[in-house]
């Protein structure tokens, strides 16, 4: 399921953030994807919409990389 989630997040990144390159789990949201605060918000909201999950501040505090985001969504979909 992790791959499906990564694919879904990659689609969100392409559609809403204009990210054209490949997306891998070890990429960091801020440093590697170059997401500023508005784009981080957009990513969080669009990931929630796509997977029908709600991320809490507690979940988000630990998210640094794309892989962390995948893992959080996976846990939510449990």
């Amino acid at each position: 399921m992790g791959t499906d989630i990564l694919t879904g997040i990659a689609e969100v990144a392409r559609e809403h953030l204009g990210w054209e390159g490949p997306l891998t789990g070890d990429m960091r949201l801020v440093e590697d994807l170059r997401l500023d605060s508005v784009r981080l918000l957009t990513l969080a909201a669009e990931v929630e919409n796509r997977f029908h999950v709600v991320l809490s501040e507690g979940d988000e505090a630990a998210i640094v990389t794309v892989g962390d985001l995948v893992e959080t969504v996976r846990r939510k979909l449990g």
Partner: protein
Amino acid sequence: MAETVNDYLLRAGRLPDGGLRFIDRAETATWVGWAEVRERALAAAGGLLALGVGRGDHVALVFPTGCEFFAAFFGALLAGAVPVPLYPPVRLGRLREYVARTARMLAACDARVVLADARVKRFLGEAVAAARPRLGCKTLADLPPAAAAAGSAGWGPAAPRPDELALIQFSSGTTVAPKAVALSHRAVVAQTEILSSCWSDRDGLRHSCASWLPLYHDMGLLGCVFPALARDATLTLLAPELFVARPALWLRAIGRYGATISPAPNFGYSLCLTRVADADMEGVDLSCWRAALNGAEPVAPSVLRAFAARFARWGLSPAALTPVYGLSEAALAVTFSALDQPCRSRWYDREALADERVARRLAPGAAGVAGAGRDARDAGDEGAAGATGPEGGREIASVGRPLPGFRLSVRDALGRELPPGRVGRLWVNGPSLMQGYLGDPEGTARAVRDGWLDTGDLGFIDDGELYLTGRAKDLIILRGRNHSPAEIEQAVDAVAGVRTGCAVAVSWLPDGAPGEMLGLFVERSRRAAAAELAALPDACREAVLAATGLAIDRLEVLPPGTLPRTSSGKLRRSEALRLYLEGGLTPPAPVTPLRLARAVARSGLGYARWRLARRREGIP
């Protein structure tokens, strides 16, 4: 006649439609009338008093948009304390930086207690531990019961004097050089009355406001909350993070609840253009929207035009778009453009503005080749030429005329008033100026002189209307929020290969652009290795993003000594920007004895010093 914000709250709640409507992500509305807001605030006030909060104490507030913010904010006021709204963490944001910033702001505002949302409180531990407010960090539920306040005798809501503080707001600078604007009840009430008078209910029209603006932001709090409270009217609120993720929810809320007033910075209008799909707008009617106020950052005429053109289909009136000007130091609004007419933009000779500091109007060029050209005629005035305009022209939107009680004065560097049409520093005088910057008497003395506020903004008056051309002050404005350049510059100090302390951050509105751009000019170190230099641009961008959440639009890596400095060696930010825009940000020529001699010989004193120094060093 109300004299304090407390008076407004104690009187509100008599009209059935007076209150707050919160919209959540599912677009469900929760209604809380002003009377209930008051009850909750009274409970919070009793709790604060029982906790030991005293008159005039500063109470920091960290809440997302929601009813708890209002209970805490007005609770602090009813307890006789001074609320200081701070911003909650950003989603997926870097928590470590957020905590460091918040700790700095808590210390700068001298908070006696921090009130926070239960979820936010969990993150504030370190910030609170670092700033050590005397009474710690509490949620509203943590407060002791109000009954414990003032013993058995009970207590009454505080009745502050009009000259006591009603509010402290951070205008810019959080980690470095925080600027906390202190506003008295008198100033807030004066501003509230002015704004309320702009939309008095008549001819069966009952004005109401909708806003997604953060409640720690002047346009959200002073511009939306207090006028709604004073008029005992409705305020429909969305959380800012909800707007950023789904901007259509803002427009849909305006239509659904018939909001007549809704403000946003230029960024908000621009975001709607890129992120609202036609499908999101199905069935939305924006014809109710009378005042789409646009302020808090420079207004881009291209965005105004495109927004008017795009949303006309859904009933948006071209007269609705209303560029305005204000700043925290004036408790918000200073000028408004006409509420019932299309906004005006004009073309001026760019070089005359920059070099002669004179506003020379140009005739608009051939009408619109740009996409929104035809519709621009509805939205613009003389500026109907679309985005291209006459050659050498710069299009500037009018931000209108001073509000009642305000006066404008455009002055030269020595403080002498300039005639209309001349570009200079904008000074304002009016009934709602700040008491000062908290804990910064020198900064206050520089900003306010003889009842006049030096805004640090540059502009000119044409036909009685104000046009802004830039800023003389060192301030970055992005998406309606102010940032201190020092925060951005310090973020790159530790980057390998950067010459420490030799970076300049600036922002400006390029012609035709949808918003301000952020530029960072850094000098490389003389000792930087080739590998460090290669990695330098990326490393700088990452460092700034991580520390501030801001993305750099233009990055220039410069040889040492390129940035302009004052005689005392301080970097000159606005001069660096001017040079950059003119393509003149170039490294200094190599220093040879002959060149040096010529340079210093230009000043007699410099030459004498130079001779003296040479003699001391034994050089003939």
